[in-house]
C-alpha cells in the first residue's frame, strides 16, 4: 500500500505550503494580541486617543489573521490524516496529549477573542482588558503546545523500539523531548519578533511620511518594546538549538552548514564569509571539535540542500535583526527618546519583512532538515504518506486557494497601511 515517490512529493509539498502559509497567520495571531492589549492598557491610563486608535486597529488585524490562522490550522489537523495517515496512526498516542492541550488553549483564545472584539461596549474596562490578556496568553500557550508536537517528531521519547515496532507507550514522557525547550523559545520569539518588526516597519514608514505623528510614534514605541528584547534573545536561543541539533541530529547539522567532509575545527559561514572553527565552536563549544560531514550518511538519507540555504538566510537575517535591535537600543538610551532620524527609519522599514522571512527559513531548516524522517529515526515520511491518489488534485486546489487568500490578505493589509500612513494626524 506504499505511495509512489511522486505522490509522496505531492503530499510533502502540500503539507509544506500549508504549514508555511499557516505559520505566518498563526504567528501574527499570537503576537498581535500582545500589542493590542498593550495599546488598550496605555489608552485606559493616559486617555491619549492614539492608543485607542492603535488598540482598535490591532484588534482588527488580530481578528483577520487569527481567523485565517484558525481555518488554515484546521486544514492542517485534517491534512495529517489526508496526506500522512500512517504518521498519525503511529504518533497519535504520543502527540495526542499536546494536541489536546493546544486545542484547549485555542478554544480559550477563540472565545475570549470574540468577547474582546465585540465586547468594547458590553464589558467593564478592566474585564475587557482581562479578556485581551487571556487572548494573548492562550495564543502563546497554543504555540507552546503545538511546538511540543514538533519537538517530539524531531527527538521522539516515551517508547522503546523493538524490531521497528513501538512498545511501552508513555505519553507523559513524550512531552519531555530534549527539543522541547529550545524549540518553544525559538518559535515564540520568532512569532513576536516577526510581527513586531513588521509593525515597526509600517509605522517607521508612517513617520517618514508624517514626521512627528503621534500615532506612529506610539505604535513604534510599543512594537520596539516587543521587537528589541526578542531580537536580542533570539541568537542565544538559536545557539542552544544548534547544540541540541548537533547532539541529536548530526545529519541535520551537516546539512545546515552544507558540510561535505567530516573535520575537526569546522568553519561556519555567514553568507559567503567563512568563520574559521565557527561551526565546531557553535555546535560543541570547542573550536577543535570534530563535526561529522554529509559523507558519513547514506546519500538517500541526506536532506535537500535547501536546508543549507534556509539556515544561511535565517542566520543572516537574525544577525541583522540583533544588530538593528542593539543599535536602536543604543540610540534610544543615549537620546532618551525614540530615534526618529530618517536613516534609522529607513533601516527599520527595510528590515520589516526580515522577521517573517527568517521564521519561514528556520521552519524550512527544521522540517526539511528532518527528512527523510517524519518521526526522526522511527517513521520515514514516504512510509507515512497516504496510498490515496492522485494527490496533484488537492495539491493544486489548496495551492490556488492559499495563493488567493495570501493575495487578499496582502490587499487588506496594504489598504490598512495606506489608511494608517495617510490619515494619521500629526
Amino acid at each position, binding site marked *: 500500500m506504499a505511495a509512489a515517490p511522486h505522490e509522496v512529493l505531492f503530499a510533502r509539498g502540500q503539507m509544506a505550503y500549508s504549514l508555511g502559509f499557516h505559520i505566518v497567520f498563526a504567528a501574527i495571531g499570537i503576537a498581535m494580541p500582545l500589542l493590542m492589549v498593550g495599546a488598550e492598557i496605555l489608552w485606559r491610563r493616559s486617555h491619549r486617543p492614539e492608543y485607542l486608535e492603535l488598540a482598535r486597529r490591532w484588534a482588527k488585524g488580530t*481578528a*483577520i489573521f487569527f*481567523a*485565517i490562522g*484558525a*481555518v*488554515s*490550522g*484546521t*486544514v492542517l*489537523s*485534517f*491534512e*495529517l*490524516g*489526508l*496526506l500522512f*495517515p*500512517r504518521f*498519525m*496512526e*503511529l504518533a*497519535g*498516542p504520543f*502527540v*495526542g*496529549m499536546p*494536541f*489536546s*492541550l493546544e*486545542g*484547549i488553549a*485555542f*478554544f*480559550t483564545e*477563540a*472565545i*475570549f477573542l*470574540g*468577547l474582546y*472584539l*465585540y*465586547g468594547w461596549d*458590553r464589558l467593564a474596562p478592566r474585564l475587557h482588558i482581562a479578556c485581551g490578556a487571556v487572548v494573548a496568553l492562550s495564543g502563546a500557550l497554543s504555540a507552546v503546545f503545538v511546538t511540543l508536537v514538533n519537538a517530539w517528531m524531531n527527538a521522539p521519547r516515551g517508547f522503546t523500539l523493538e524490531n521497528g515496532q513501538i512498545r511501552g*507507550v*508513555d*505519553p*507523559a514522557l513524550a512531552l519531555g523531548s530534549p527539543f522541547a525547550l529550545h524549540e518553544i523559545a525559538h518559535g515564540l520569539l520568532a512569532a513576536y519578533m516577526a510581527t513586531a518588526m513588521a509593525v515597526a516597519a509600517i509605522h517607521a514608514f508612517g513617520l517618514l511620511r508624517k514626521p512627528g505623528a503621534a500615532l506612529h510614534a506610539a505604535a513604534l514605541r510599543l512594537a520596539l518594546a516587543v521587537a528589541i528584547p526578542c531580537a536580542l534573545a533570539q541568537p542565544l536561543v538559536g545557539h542552544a538549538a544548534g547544540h541540541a541539533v548537533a547532539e541529536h541530529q548530526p545529519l541535520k547539522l551537516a546539512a545546515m552548514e552544507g558540510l561535505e567532509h567530516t573535520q575537526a575545527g569546522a568553519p561556519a559561514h555567514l553568507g559567503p564569509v567563512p568563520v574559521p572553527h565557527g561551526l565546531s565552536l557553535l555546535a560543541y563549544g570547542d573550536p577543535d571539535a570534530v563535526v561529522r560531514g554529509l559523507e558519513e550518511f547514506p546519500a538517500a538519507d541526506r536532506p535537500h540542500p535547501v536546508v543549507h540555504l534556509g539556515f544561511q538566510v535565517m542566520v543572516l537575517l537574525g544577525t541583522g535583526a540583533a544588530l538593528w535591535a542593539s543599535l536602536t537600543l543604543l540610540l534610544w538610551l543615549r537620546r532618551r527618546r525614540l530615534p526618529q532620524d530618517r536613516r534609522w527609519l529607513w533601516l527599520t522599514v527595510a528590515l520589516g519583512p526580515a522577521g517573517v522571512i527568517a521564521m519561514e527559513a528556520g521552519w524550512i531548516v527544521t522540517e526539511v532538515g528532518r527528512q527523510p524522517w517524519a518521526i526522526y529515526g522511527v517513521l520515514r515520511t514516504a512510509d507515512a504518506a*497516504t*496510498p*490515496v491518489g492522485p494527490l496533484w*488534485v*488537492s495539491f493544486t*486546489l*489548496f495551492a490556488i*486557494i492559499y495563493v488567493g*487568500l495570501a493575495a*487578499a490578505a496582502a490587499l*487588506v493589509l496594504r*489598504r490598512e497601511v495606506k489608511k494608517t500612513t495617510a490619515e494619521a494626524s500629526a
Partner: protein
Amino acid sequence: MSAADLLAGAMLAGLAIYAVTGGADFGGGVWDLLARGPRAEEQRRLIARALAPVWEANHVWLVFVVVVLFSAFPPAFAALGIRFHAPLTAALVGIVLRGSAFMFRSYGGAPAWGRLFAVASAATPFFLGLVLAGITVESGAWLGVFPLAVGALAVALGAYLAAVYLTAETGDPALRADFRRRAAAAWLALAALAALALIAAPDGFVRRLHPAIVALTALLAAAALIALIRGRYQAARALAAAQGAAIVAGWGAIQYPTLIAPDLTIARAAAPDPTLRLLLPAIAIGGAIVLPSLYWLMRVFKSRPE
C-alpha cells in the same frame, strides 16, 4: 464503561454541540445565499451580526472532535483520511473559504466575498454529512441516495437551527417574521429529508434506531414548531437546539460501538491505555476552563435580542 467509551462519548457530545452551534453558523450562510425580498440586506446584516462574535469558538468544536479522534483512536483517524479523502478535502475547502470570506467581507472586502461565504457555508455541512453517512454504512460508500440524503439533511438542520435562532436574536418584527417563515419551511424540509434518509438507509439501520431517542426527537421537533408558531422564540431556540442534539445522539446510538463501519470499533481503534488515561483528565480540565467561558460568551452576546 471503559475509558475508550468515555472518550467516544466526549467525541459524540462534541459533534452534537458542533451540529447545533457551528451547524447553525453554516445555516446562517444558507440564509445569506437565499436572502431575498425587500429586506434581503437587513437579513444578511442580522446573520453577520449573529455570527461575528461566536463563529470561531463554535468552529473549535470540530477541531475538538478531530483531536480526540486522532489522539484516542489513531487507526480510525487514519482510516477516515484514506477512505474519505475526497469528501473531507471538499469539506476543508469549504471550511477555509467560509471563514476567510466571512472575515474579508466583515472588514470591507468586495461583495464577492459575501457570495463565497454563502456558497461555502451551504456546501461544507453537505460534505461533512457525506462522511458521516459513509462511516455508518458497511460498504463505506459516500455516494448514493443515503449519503446524499444525509448530506442534505445536515444542510437543512443547520438552516433550520439558524432560522430559529435568528428569530430570537432580532427585535425587528418584520425580520423576525421572515425568519419564522424560513424556520417553518426548514422544519418541513428537515422532516422530509429525515424520512428520505430512513427509507434509503441500508438494511438494519432502522432496526437499530433507539425507540426512546426517536420519540424524544419527534417530541422536541413538535414542541419547537409549536413554540415557533406561538411566538415563544427563546423557548423555540432551546427546543430546536435540543432537537438537533437528539438527532446526533440518535445517530450515535445506532453507531455504537462502531467508529467506522464495518469493523473499526471503539475497542479496536483505541490508543494504548496510558494515553487514554491521560486524555480523560486533560479533557475534563479543558472542559472546566472552556465550558464556563463559552457560557459567558453566549450570555454576553446571545441573551437578548438586539
